[in-house]
């Protein structure tokens, strides 16, 4: 099979959808929804056929079993986002730009795929930009709403800043080693001061994208202002892809100075988890709440990154997989309620269980999974992360993370309490969700439950991560 199969397929369906969009009259734009979802589903299924690993363009593009599997995970996530967005896209304000939503999403996905398979810093950077810039357009999708436009502007500014920092770091790497290929750079990283500085710049640039704590300030505003479906995409898929390539680069390129970056990540992990959790405690808007909870989750992911090991790589991928289903489930419920009623505050969810039992059950499962309650997949994700960190001897770090898990349990339960226990005179009226929304939420719930019970997925990831570093 083709080495660049995932990317070529995605480009192909993007071009097909663009042609369809050009020849569809303005009143018929909604007809693109079903073909777009079906094409994406087809690409997702085709992605699972076994492919051949290989290297293209003299090492700029490298495809391994691991990257192929991660691309499949991203495909599934984007498919769920597509399905969940249908209800929002059918609103009057979006009727004329339905196809643009799909095109921009696919463009970012292509960018992420190239970023993940990059074997060269230039390729990595191009992929990163392709994955970032269309998202800013998506964040400003409801451009007549002030908050949405603000979110787009904030995203483009913060990503421009972070890209600048990242590029500065990359230029220093080039300056000290004379090459941009990961494989050639790795043996030349000796820990001279300029390389350490380069690494810090690189780290800062990536920390912006993953929204780790000293660089998280854009997150809450952008997540609140952007449309819910774009927010869910930002918080799960962009973040997942960035974490993945970040881990790979740390493990392969910077493995020689692992002692230094372990210390850095140690501090950043503690800060990220704690600050994310403490800010999440006080949020009333559910989108902001989920934004801070996603910052905290990014901190948990770093637990697996620290202390370079096969187990670490495995747990990171596994956690991202679990996190995609859990967070998309939570955002799916917030999205449908926000679309139908415009209500986004936790107080508005009082008594939701009486009127919308199914939605509140999905929300409850998703939040339990995010918090890490045993039968659901989120528990195993966190458990493995803690194991990976503990195996490397970071006991104090694990202890702090555990304390933070308990704090996070409190605020996740606040939402559940509002839905199940609180009474309200004006609860949200019964929402009749369409089949797309139901399907999207069903996939999320199925993912959360099934991944929790099947250990073979974890073992598969573990085997694929072997020999990476």
């Amino acid at each position, binding site marked *: 099979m083709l080495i660049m199969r995932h990317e070529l397929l995605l480009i192909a369906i993007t071009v097909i959808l663009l042609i369809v969009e*050009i020849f569809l009259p303005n009143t018929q734009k909604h007809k693109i929804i079903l073909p777009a979802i079906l094409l994406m589903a087809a690409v997702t299924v085709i992605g699972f056929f076994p492919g051949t690993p290989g290297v293209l363009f003299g090492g700029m593009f490298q495809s391994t079993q691991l990257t192929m599997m991660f691309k499949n995970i991203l495909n599934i996530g984007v498919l769920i986002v597509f399905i969940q967005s249908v209800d929002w896209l059918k609103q009057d304000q979006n009727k004329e730009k339905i196809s643009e939503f799909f095109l921009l999403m696919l463009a970012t996905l292509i960018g992420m795929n190239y970023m993940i398979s990059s074997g060269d810093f230039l390729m990595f950077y191009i992929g990163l930009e392709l994955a970032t810039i269309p998202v800013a357009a998506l964040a400003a999708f409801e451009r007549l709403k002030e908050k949405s436009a603000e979110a787009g502007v904030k995203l483009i500014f913060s990503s421009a800043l972070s890209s600048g920092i990242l590029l500065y770091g990359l230029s220093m790497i080039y300056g000290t080693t004379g090459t941009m290929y990961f494989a050639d750079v790795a043996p030349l990283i000796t820990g001279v001061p300029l390389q*350490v*500085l380069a690494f810090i710049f690189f780290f800062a640039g990536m920390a912006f994208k993953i929204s780790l704590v000293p660089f998280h300030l854009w997150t809450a505003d952008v997540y609140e202002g952007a449309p819910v479906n774009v927010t869910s995409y930002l918080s799960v898929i962009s973040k997942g892809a960035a974490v993945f390539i970040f881990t790979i680069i740390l493990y392969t390129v910077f493995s020689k100075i692992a002692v230094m970056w372990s210390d850095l990540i140690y501090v950043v992990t503690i800060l990220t988890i704690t600050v994310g959790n403490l800010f999440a405690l006080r949020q009333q808007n559910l989108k902001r709440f989920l934004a801070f909870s996603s910052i905290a989750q990014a901190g948990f992911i770093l637990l697996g990154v620290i202390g370079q090991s096969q187990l670490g790589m495995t747990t990171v991928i596994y956690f991202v997989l679990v996190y995609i289903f859990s967070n998309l489930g939570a955002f799916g419920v917030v999205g449908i309620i926000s679309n139908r009623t415009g209500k986004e505050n936790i107080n508005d969810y009082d008594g939701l269980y009486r009127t919308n039992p199914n939605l509140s059950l999905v929300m409850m499962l998703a939040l339990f999974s995010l918090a890490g309650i045993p039968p659901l997949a989120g528990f195993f994700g966190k458990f493995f992360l803690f194991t990976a960190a503990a195996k490397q001897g970071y006991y104090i770090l694990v202890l702090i993370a555990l304390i933070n898990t308990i704090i996070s349990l409190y605020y996740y339960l606040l939402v559940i309490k509002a839905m199940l226990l609180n009474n309200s005179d004006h609860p949200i009226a019964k929402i009749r969700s369409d089949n797309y929304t139901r399907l999207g939420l069903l996939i999320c719930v199925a993912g959360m439950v099934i991944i929790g019970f099947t250990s073979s997925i974890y073992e598969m990831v573990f085997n694929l991560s072997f020999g990476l570093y």
Partner: protein
Amino acid sequence: MSAESLILFFIVGAFLVGFAIVFSIFVAPTSTNPQKAEPYECGIPTEGLTWLQFNVGYYLFAIIFLIFDVEAVFIFPWAVVMKEMGMIAFVEIVIFFFVLGLGLLYAWKKGALKWE
């Protein structure tokens, strides 16, 4: 590792930039007159507030121009290796033009080329 060299790097960097700015203030000959203070916009002084909203059409034209400008940059290296690579290079550039053409068609369909 030696952190001193990093600190030195920052100090020297800050010093060099600061020195260049301060030095030019002292050394450069300065002369001020009313004509010099006028904004240069085709020689005519501006009327009223200049903080106006620009027609978004300017940006659309600029962006479309930019896309095709950058495209030209990609064609030059292609033209250099075209003879050696033969048919493959030709097919590749056709695909490239096809995708770009689609982009232009899209902009056209959306009315970006219409000046209002």
